[in-house]
């Protein structure tokens, strides 16, 4: 069953030097599976994720031949319909909890505001649900965390709070935009395994956006490789080593391997025709 279908997505930003296309004709579809989107900075992967949630604010412009989520047309949905989808059916975890959590509201208020405002739950019921969500992301002292402000939490803790917040309404699709890039290497694995287990248990769709090809390959079923606003290669994660596109091969080869031969790492060879950003 298709959860999300995107056809020929284009995102344009007006700048002083004229329009810049950040995403130019991206198509993909997604069931209840895990889709990775990989690419270097500026490849359009984050913008693609945000366009799905219609979070691109004017003067940015989103166009597509089709963008359908579970039978609902996202391109022509009203603001009210979009608000009902966001949070409730599609969630998003952002890169750095230092910035993505409101610094002057307690964690508890941020966790419960959706439940109280949207679902009309009382303070006690909402609090109980929020504590359960914190326990689900393996926070052992949910009461203390509920009363804490974001600056009182470590990065790993903050990102778990963020994941808990997005999973409370039990969405069908979660977009994780570099969810571990801002974290210490030591807690990255922990946060990832929590995210992985929750997504697997609840059978939701996942779009995992990252610049780390190997990481994505480990967590996803399928990988889209983006370059300059286009998808240059779509490949099953298990076939990654057989990637044909020179950009994908370049991304794979630019990482050192422990115990591997100590030869200089190859730079990305951008001499091919693909590098100019033309049609793949």
């Amino acid at each position, binding site marked *: 069953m298709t959860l999300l279908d995107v056809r020929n997505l284009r995102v344009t930003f007006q700048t002083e030097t004229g329009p810049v296309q950040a995403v130019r004709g991206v198509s993909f579809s997604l069931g209840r599976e895990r889709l990775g989107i990989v690419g270097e900075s500026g490849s359009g992967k984050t913008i693609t994720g945000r366009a799905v949630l219609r979070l691109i604010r004017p003067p940015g412009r989103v166009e597509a031949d089709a963008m359908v989520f579970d039978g609902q047309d996202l391109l022509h949905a009203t603001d009210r319909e979009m608000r009902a989808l966001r*949070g409730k059916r599609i969630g*998003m975890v952002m890169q750095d909890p230092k*910035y993505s959590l409101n610094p*002057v509201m307690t964690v508890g208020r941020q966790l419960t505001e959706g439940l109280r405002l949207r679902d009309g739950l009382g303070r006690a019921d909402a609090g109980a649900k929020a504590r359960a969500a914190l326990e689900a992301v393996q926070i052992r002292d949910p009461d203390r965390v509920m009363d804490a402000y974001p600056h009182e939490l470590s990065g790993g803790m903050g990102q778990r709070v963020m994941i808990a917040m997005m999973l409370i309404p039990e969405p069908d699709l979660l977009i994780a935009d570099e969810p571990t890039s801002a974290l210490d290497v030591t807690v990255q694995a922990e946060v990832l395994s929590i995210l992985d287990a929750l997504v697997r248990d609840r059978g939701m769709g996942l779009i995992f956006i990252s610049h780390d090809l190997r990481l994505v390959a480990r967590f996803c079923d399928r990988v889209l490789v983006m370059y300059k606003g286009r998808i240059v290669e779509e490949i099953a994660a298990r076939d990654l080593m057989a990637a044909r596109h020179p950009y994908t091969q370049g991304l794979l080869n630019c990482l050192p391997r422990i115990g591997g031969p100590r030869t200089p790492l190859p730079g990305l060879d951008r001499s091919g025709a693909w590098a100019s950003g033309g049609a793949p």
Partner: protein
Amino acid sequence: MTGSPVSGNRAFVLAGRIGLGLGSLAITILGLLLITFLISRVVPIDPVLSIVGERATEAQIAAVRAKLGLDLPMWQQFLIYVRDALTGDLGTSIRTGEPVAAEIARYFPATLELATLGTIFGTLVGVPAGVLAATRPGSLADQVVRVIGLMGYSMPVFWLGLIGLLVFYGQLDWVSGPGRLDPTYDMMMQFTLTPYTGMILIDSALNGAWDVFGNAVSHIILPAGLLGYVSMAYISRMTRSFMMNELGQEYITTARVKGMPEWRVVWVHAMKNALVPLITVITLSYAYLLEGSVLTETIFAWPGLGSYITDALFAADMPAVLGGTVVVGAVFITLNMASDLLYRLVDPRARA
């Protein structure tokens, strides 16, 4: 994770902050008194001469000098000055022979009333205007707020005041003219009503004298509106820039991803953060108005602190000028401290 302090600990920290704040308040006020004291000793106005006149004998001069304590060593004079100031004795006005403190107690409520009303106007209009401009940058609303704000910045206050009087008092007769009350009501106020605060709006309301209240409103509305306009120009500009900054933050995206309605994103999520610097802006603009805006008070014949200090200055009445300066300084310090406390209440990061 780093340990989050338990709530009892938080209260303790806050109490410590207040104690520290009071300590620094004392030091600042001592510094203020030192400066006014030094000014009074270096200005080329001899307090003795201005009391005894030019034809006094040596003996008379010496007697007055001793009476004023001017024959004592400097440090002793300063201690006496500090002791007097702290017990509410700011000296005696040369012009009127009355205690400066009593005079200021009469003039200051007029300024307090005007400045408070002006700040309320400025905040009630300026903050929503700034938010409106910030949520629709480049729109017609934004341009209108910008132009109105720019006029508030750049038009001289005395000109706006004169035009205001000409139009709303002279031509349209919607409001009353200069002064705090019409003479009849002024007499009523002075002779039949109990003064509680010296602020006519509050006193007349407490006395239930609604005709006096109405007359006071018709007098204060124009000067308060004028000061409110000037502070609105500043507050709306600042609100716009603070809100623009907050609305571009990632936690705003989070709130939208959670499906929060736009009013909540703007007025709860962004505003709670914008409020932190905004508190400082509003208190500073309030303090500025409380210094007594000389031009406004002159045009509207408003017997406030600004007029008092100006008149004292022209009469070379140094005790009155310095007494006024001490009061202005104390008001400024107090408001600064209040803004500091409010700031901590709003921003949890400043509490730790």
